């Protein structure tokens, strides 16, 4: 498959916005300006940028605590996103969710879960609603390789196949489940092999390759949209910043890590765009500058937003306030 220039540049804009926000957050942590647990998506940006390029704005996604890239790619506005990460009243969830629990239904981000694998069964329900209501939406479930070993993953893949749901399961295989390399926790070479056990197509793709990732996503989304059922995509990638930011990563193979850093997908994407004649150096610099300005604006907005009022505590536990 070839991907047209407009789509590639759209993906690059997304990747640049993700990268700018991630950089700002790591900078704020480094400077001691914020104190949060932060699960950086650095290294995995291409995957949701490519997937979202295949989605409509009202399609659904569910993601996990390492979900900043997925949320930005789906279109969550940066100002409330950054405010939520900082726990402020103007956040997507009015400061009550935090970075592990971003919800932004306006952009289709329905659930961000802090429970490994917890969102996968819920994605089926979103897909089921689309099937029953005939609204034509597709649901994407993002999760990591670690989630492929939790029971809910297996139950959900089976049920998605049984009900022929319009769901695309995107496993971002960054090769580590928390602090453990995946060869310690699985005996299959590729997780995509598991899909066959549930009767749905499973593919492994280089998630850091924009064209390959886009092609796999486009095919899976088209299948789902056409009512042909779910697909499991194992997108191979790498986690550059450890489990959480500040993780010293003593468990990582240094040779492997250095090789992954050398193959950083962002400069590779940049080179592909220039060498393929899709954009000039100036074009890309302009996209990056714009993304940086957006991220700066979002950070400024977040810091200016007041903390939630104490009364906020009792709101949204139930539909009506109970005390």
């Amino acid at each position, binding site marked *: 498959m070839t991907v047209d220039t407009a789509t590639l540049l759209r993906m690059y804009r997304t990747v640049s916005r993700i990268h700018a926000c991630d950089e700002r957050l790591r900078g704020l942590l480094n400077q001691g300006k914020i104190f949060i647990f932060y699960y950086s998506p650095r290294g995995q940006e291409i995957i949701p940028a490519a997937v979202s390029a295949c989605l409509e704005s009202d399609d659904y996604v569910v993601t996990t605590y390492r979900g900043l890239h997925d949320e930005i790619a789906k279109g969550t506005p940066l100002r409330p996103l950054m405010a939520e990460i900082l726990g402020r009243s103007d956040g997507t*969830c009015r400061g009550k*969710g935090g970075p592990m629990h971003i*919800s932004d239904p306006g952009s289709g981000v329905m659930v961000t879960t802090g*429970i490994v694998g917890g969102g996968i069964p*819920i994605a089926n329900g979103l897909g089921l*609603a689309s099937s029953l209501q005939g609204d034509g939406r597709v649901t994407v479930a993002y999760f990591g390789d670690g989630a492929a070993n939790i029971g809910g993953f297996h*139950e959900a893949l089976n*049920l998605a196949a049984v*009900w022929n749901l319009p769901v695309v399961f995107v496993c971002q295989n960054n090769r580590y489940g928390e602090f453990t390399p995946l060869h310690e926790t699985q005996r299959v070479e590729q997780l995509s092999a598991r899909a066959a056990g549930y009767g749905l197509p499973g593919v492994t793709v280089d998630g850091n390759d924009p064209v390959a990732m886009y092609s796999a996503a486009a095919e899976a989304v088209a299948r789902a949209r056409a009512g042909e059922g779910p697909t499991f995509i194992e997108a191979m990638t790498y986690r550059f910043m450890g489990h959480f930011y500040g993780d010293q990563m003593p468990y990582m193979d240094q040779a492997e890590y250095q090789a992954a850093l050398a193959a950083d997908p962002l400069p590779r994407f940049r080179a592909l765009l220039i060498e393929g004649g899709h954009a000039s150096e100036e074009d890309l610099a302009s996209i990056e500058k714009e993304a940086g300005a957006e991220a700066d604006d979002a950070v400024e907005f977040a810091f200016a937003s007041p903390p939630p009022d104490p009364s906020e505590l009792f709101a949204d536990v139930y*539909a009506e306030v109970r005390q």
Partner: protein
Amino acid sequence: MTTATVDTVELTMGAAINAALDEALAADPAVFLLGEDIMDPAGGVMQVTKGLSTKHGRDRVRETPISEQAIIGAAIGAAMAGLRPVPEIMIMDFLAVCADQLVNHAAKLRFMSGGRTNVPLTIRCLHTGGFQMGAQHSQTLEAWLCHVPGINVVFPSTPADAKGLLTACIRNDDPCVFVEPAALYGAAGPVPVGEHVVPLGQADVKRAGSDVTLITYGRQVHDCLGVAAALEGEIDVEVLDLRSLVPWDAAAMITSVSKTRRAVVVHQAVRRCGVGAEIAAFLSEELWGTLAAPVLRVAAKETPVPYAKELEDFHLPSAADITEAVRTVTK
């Protein structure tokens, strides 16, 4: 409280629940059922959903694999997308299998999203005990649920309440767990025909009395009424059926116990950290100085539910236990 004068029909609790589901499916296209063995010809392990898949179709009365996490997860997602799923978890004990979906997701998504999403689902589950089904099919686990903010916990004791409360749950905009006492499935009673809603959080005075209040719910409502009748002329016992535990009717408890000054909480769950402990603490906080005796609890003994009939009878709270507690607080 039920509506004043309405046509009623004599139904078992199982049939009343079936009627509530049937009417909800007919009234609202957003309602659908999902669960294990619920479609015809089985129609549910206790035939509570019998006829519904035939009448409303298998899209809306959906069979599932034996996958409790997938069932509740699917219900959550569908609820967030505007539907009103009624998943069945066959027996209450199996809530443990899907606790992550219920506790970490359904209960918290409204809050975690700052009110931008909500999860209007109703989990129906059977509650047994007393049928020699052993330790994994006989538990009474409502206290687990009450301890998680964000869930409504509902526990009917009559066919009419079962219909009215289940209807209220399905229309509620938050997750509800509707516990169906198996021991009461076959007992018949008058059930209003057509629209019947019992709002959550309204207790029902099943019997007025002046000496002591028995606060209870579910199957034990009937045990308490039996004890009250047996003690008539000696001790005047009030029986308060909570009907829903979250939200609960604080005012009804205060009103009743302010009058009787004595309370005994009766439930089938084990005593430690049970709902009875919460009620006892609540009453002592609210009515210290009014209470004429400590609030006692009649509950199951602190063991798993045993198999042998003699052991199970010994484990479960009995009418004799209730009577003894009533005599103790009125001494």
